[in-house]
């Protein structure tokens, strides 16, 4: 009997044995648990508290007590200690209430519909609405433009209006364009009115962040966005007055304004230059030619000769959308290739 009693004790000990470093063996055995533990960081918080509970420190714990056997393929109950379960349930319930009442995010505002009516196919010839005629050189623009999702339209718009100075919101999907010239002349006052209403509605539909918000990006980010468009210009001038120092180098800066390599700079930088060398942000040196010069406004227009690709023009980097991110990335690539 004594022997049997000892055996019973041994069995009881075995049932309550202590497992050292259970994490590794559990992870080896159980694929679902491994995926759960690895995926904790990536999980988005669920609105009704169904997220994986990442507060339980399983992997870090060295010693765990085995309460019951885990069958292969069965989900592991992480909080096996009895006292822990009600505590966690209470906590999740509290968190759930908070999430619903306070923390729940407001859904995104919908995209504004296209409100501008198309132009009449048959214009009313007898109209007396005192609207001025749009001439070709007056460069009339719509007040409101919608874009961002249509690549073809976006490309056409960029090509058509690369020179205009516009104010853009931060939102990709909406863009409010304020022409810098006189108010746009439109053919009919009704079109003008509908444009105005559409502008108002689009303005109302815009999220607040897209309107007149000061740019809050860091100066380093700004620099990385802008610096690829800035080039350095070395102009070698021949100084006839000083024979001993015949060649004199004038250093200036310039800004790329076109994709084909047009660079705007000061006339006094390049005036009288025998040769021009432009150093891009990437460190590439390229020759340049003077396209035009105006000493009154002290402006000169250069074109980079030779190698492509040229850096993005200044107007292209203002867009904070995918293309901006792309140019930002290429800017960093240039910066890294410079070293």
């Amino acid at each position, binding site marked *: 009997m004594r022997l049997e009693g000892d055996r019973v004790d041994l069995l009881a000990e075995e049932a309550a044995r202590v497992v050292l470093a259970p994490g590794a063996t559990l992870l080896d055995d159980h694929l679902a648990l491994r995926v759960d533990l690895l995926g904790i960081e990536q999980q988005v918080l669920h609105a009704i508290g169904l997220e994986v509970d990442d507060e339980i420190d399983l992997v870090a714990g060295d010693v765990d007590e085995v309460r019951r056997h885990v069958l292969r393929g069965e989900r592991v109950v992480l909080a096996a200690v009895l006292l822990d379960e009600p505590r966690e349930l209470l906590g999740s319930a509290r968190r759930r209430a908070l999430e619903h009442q306070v923390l729940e995010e407001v859904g995104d505002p919908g995209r504004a519909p296209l409100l501008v009516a198309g132009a009449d196919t048959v214009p009313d010839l007898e109209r007396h609405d005192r609207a001025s005629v749009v001439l070709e050189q007056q460069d009339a623009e719509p007040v409101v433009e919608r874009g961002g999702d249509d690549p073809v339209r976006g490309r056409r718009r960029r090509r058509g209006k690369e020179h205009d100075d516009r104010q853009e919101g931060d939102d990709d999907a909406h863009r409010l364009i304020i022409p810098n010239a006189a108010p746009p002349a439109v053919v009919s006052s009704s079109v003008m009115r509908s444009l105005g209403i559409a502008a108002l509605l689009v303005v109302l539909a815009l999220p607040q962040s897209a309107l007149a918000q000061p740019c809050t990006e860091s100066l380093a980010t700004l*620099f990385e966005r*802008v610096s690829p468009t800035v080039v350095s210009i070395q102009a070698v001038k021949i100084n006839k007055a000083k024979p001993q120092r015949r060649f004199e180098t004038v250093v200036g800066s310039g800004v790329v304004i076109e994709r084909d390599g047009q660079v705007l700079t*000061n006339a006094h930088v390049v005036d009288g230059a025998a040769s021009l060398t432009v*150093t891009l942000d990437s460190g590439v040196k390229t020759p340049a030619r003077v396209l*035009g010069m105006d000493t009154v406004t002290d402006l000169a*227009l250069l074109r980079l000769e030779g190698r492509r690709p040229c850096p993005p023009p200044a*107007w292209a980097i203002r867009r904070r959308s995918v293309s901006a991110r792309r140019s930002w990335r290429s800017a960093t690539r240039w910066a890294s290739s410079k070293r």
Partner: protein
Amino acid sequence: MAIGNPMGLEQTMTRGIVSGLNRILPGLAEQPMIQTDAPINPGNSGGPLVDRCGAVMGINTFISEEANSIGFALPINAAKAVLRDLRETGRVTRPWLGLQGREIDAQIASLFRLPLAPGYLIEIVYEEARPSGPACAAGPCRWSCRARNTSSAATS
């Protein structure tokens, strides 16, 4: 923000505020400039003056050598106005009269004992410019008569 390569130091960014707009500088064209206190040094010339969002506002052009941190940038809209001429013809054609002068107010009239109180004092008629100024080509007689009427300080 001003970005350029002052003194050959490539891609230097300096920052400041826009100190004033529409500054008419004496001795320069009737071109309002943007005044900024972002440090602009020799070599910054031609570089962009960008705003906080990265949009180009002007082209850094002048600094005041006597003062500290008074830089002037040509507004980008003025630059865009001449860009088309620069692209197509390589230069900008402007009408000009070939005269320089100033209005006569009561102070100047009393100073020079001028008979005309509201008038126009012609100081310089451009003759040597090539091609000679339109005012010069119009005939010296008329203009000298006018000059005699207004001021003995007028040349030609």
